[in-house]
């Protein structure tokens, strides 16, 4: 099963390498990864998407918790959560398709950030929705580049992220 794991990590030299190194050296795969500081500048948050059996995911979670820099590990997938992704698209839109393309972007809640020399579009949403918008837009012109930021997750509970088990 696909799991979305959120890791709070101390902002120390080499900390990110230790997380990714652990995952690769134990033979687990990373589908997407996003990292940025939190409102506490000494702590970064990693959102990691990986796939594996329950046993593999349990191992990933417990091995991550053995890293000294790791503050908490939260498997989002086990609780009620929201997952969102940001994508930037670059496309060449035929002159007679520009209105239709703009409508697709607006309906999806996205923005056209620039139109010259190429269209640059910003879309935020679920992974499926982003994939769908990309597919729809490809009918109006040529997709030149797709930049996806990786999935971010947040739990719906009113509390802060629970501490690691």
């Amino acid at each position, binding site marked *: 099963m696909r799991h979305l794991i959120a890791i*709070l990590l*101390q902002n120390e030299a080499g900390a990110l390498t*230790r997380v990714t*190194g652990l995952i690769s*050296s134990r033979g687990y795969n990373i589908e997407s990864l996003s990292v940025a500081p939190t409102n506490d500048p000494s702590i970064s948050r990693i959102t990691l998407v990986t796939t594996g059996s329950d046993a593999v995911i349990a191992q990933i979670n417990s091995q991550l*918790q053995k890293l*000294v*820099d790791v*503050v908490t590990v939260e498997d989002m997938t086990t609780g009620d959560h929201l997952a969102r992704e940001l994508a930037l698209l670059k496309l060449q839109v035929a002159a007679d398709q520009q209105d239709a393309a703009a409508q697709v972007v607006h309906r999806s809640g996205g923005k056209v950030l620039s139109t010259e020399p190429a269209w640059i579009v910003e879309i935020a949403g679920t992974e499926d929705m982003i994939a769908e918008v990309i597919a729809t837009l490809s009918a109006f012109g040529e997709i030149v580049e797709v930049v996806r930021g990786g999935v971010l997750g947040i739990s719906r509970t009113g509390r802060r992220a629970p501490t*690691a088990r």
Partner: protein
Amino acid sequence: MGSAPHPRAGEMMTGAEMIVQVLVDEGVDTVFGYSGGAILPLYDAVFCHNEATAGSMPLIVPANEQGAAFMAAGYARASGRVGVALVTSGPGATNTVTPVRDSMADSVPIVVICGQVPTSAIGTDAFQEAPVPSIMGAVAKHVFLVTDPTRLEATVRTAFEIARTGRPGPVVLDIPKDVQNWRGAFNGSGHLPIPGYRQRLNRVGANKLSESACAALLAALERAERPLIYAGGGVINGGAAEALRDLVHALRIPVVTTLMGIGAIDTSDEMAMRMLGMHGAAFANYAVEDCDLLLAIGARFDDRVAGNPAKFAVNAKFIAQFDIDVSEVNKVKHVHWSHLGSLPEALTALREGARRAGFRRDWSAWHRHCDHLRRTYAMNYDRASTRIQPHYLLEEINRLTRGEAIISTGVGQHQMWAAQYFDFRSPRLWLTSGSMGTMGFGLPAAIGAQFAMRDRVVIDVDGDASIRMNIGELETVTTYGLPVKVVVINNCGDGMVKQWQKLFFKGRLSASDKSLHKKDFVKAAMADGFEFSVRLESKADVPRVVEEFIRFPGPAFLEVVVDPDAGVYPMVGPGQSYDEMITGEFIASRKSVEVVPPGESEMF
């Protein structure tokens, strides 16, 4: 830690002097290391400290940095205290990668302090520069690169804290030369914030065995006819050997131990069933096959024990596990009951819970069965042989040392024979590279152990191939006048590799035979200053020469030319179940088993 300020608080010092002061505060009485450009400030600070304190922190110099870190590991394994190695940048640091990984795999607390090129030169491919944080990050429990000198002393203290707490392990400090030369005010206290680590540690430490969990386990024991304890290295690392013994005596449950768990219970205890696993005693492995309840304590079902996890302890209806590391529970084998927490407390709580509940269970039929297994499937070898059998040699040494000596080993056949034939009355006497299986471990580990335990007889039981890996350390033994005993069991090559090649590769001895090698070990040891350096080739001389060797007051070296065809039995092939155990010609077997090469993917 008291609240009184440090006597040197506020004093201006160099970073190197601060490191030395923190080592003193952490109780370090010996350090091991090899000098070089990037660690010179620290070496100078150690020199000055020793000059001022009548040599209170000897710095022991090996032939190679791998030796230094294995000495630190041997010191730690024998004493339970943190071992310390100080090495220079680049090659000095990379030479310690093997002992750092070895210590991680066997949960041994060491701190390795590496010099690093100056902060301004990091990343420029400077002379003797290596990316130590990246390299060590993959193998150590933790690594710190110190770039902010104001955090140096707190970092060094925190390194010791991380090394010794929880599941112990190696911590590497990478300290640029300019940070060692920096001058600042010594604070005398303070650690780095490592909130996640401490929180998890406190939670596991506070996790007491609940009454309901205790009752559930006692209920399972009540139902069991044939309970067996499977004790691992965690019992020793967790300081739980006494608690285990008391529990075993109170409940009268037989105990098998892993390679790392040897000494967790006195091997001569009436409940001790010796070592299980790939080269475990046949009776130990049969007990595992026959038990209906298995209690894993500080053991992790590794592939040398549970080569085939699905068929391991196949008749156990209930498996319970005590550990301190959450990732070891349900990693290999599903367990029915587990407790995560400090072992001494948990084992004591179980014993107390049993006492309060008036738990009384008569397992005398199972005890008789275990006695029968021990007698019928006892360890044995070719006693009538005219050649020296390695087992015979070890029995003769054991007759004199009586389970009280510290025994270190290399890796291979001699290691397994030593595990099988020596007695160990207490923990921390058996020093072996269990998980990593590092050849060359034995000699430096023995040196480190002798520094930690000055009054113990320390014997490196080595192989002719293993000792070659760190043979430079023979000189270290005599340089420091250590009474370490080095016995090389010479079977002309990589005996264990040859055994596998005979069993699984139709006897093609690819690169494992050394019978044409010219090395004269006795002369080599003499050249390194061993006054006792003897070759033993005749079986009749074994008792006399072994006695002279063990009784020799100083460094002693003994090469024993043994039967090169002696095998290690029993053997459970890689990936195989205990049902497929072969016992060789001299140990009885419950059934005749054909040697079947394991699946190719299992061949490690």
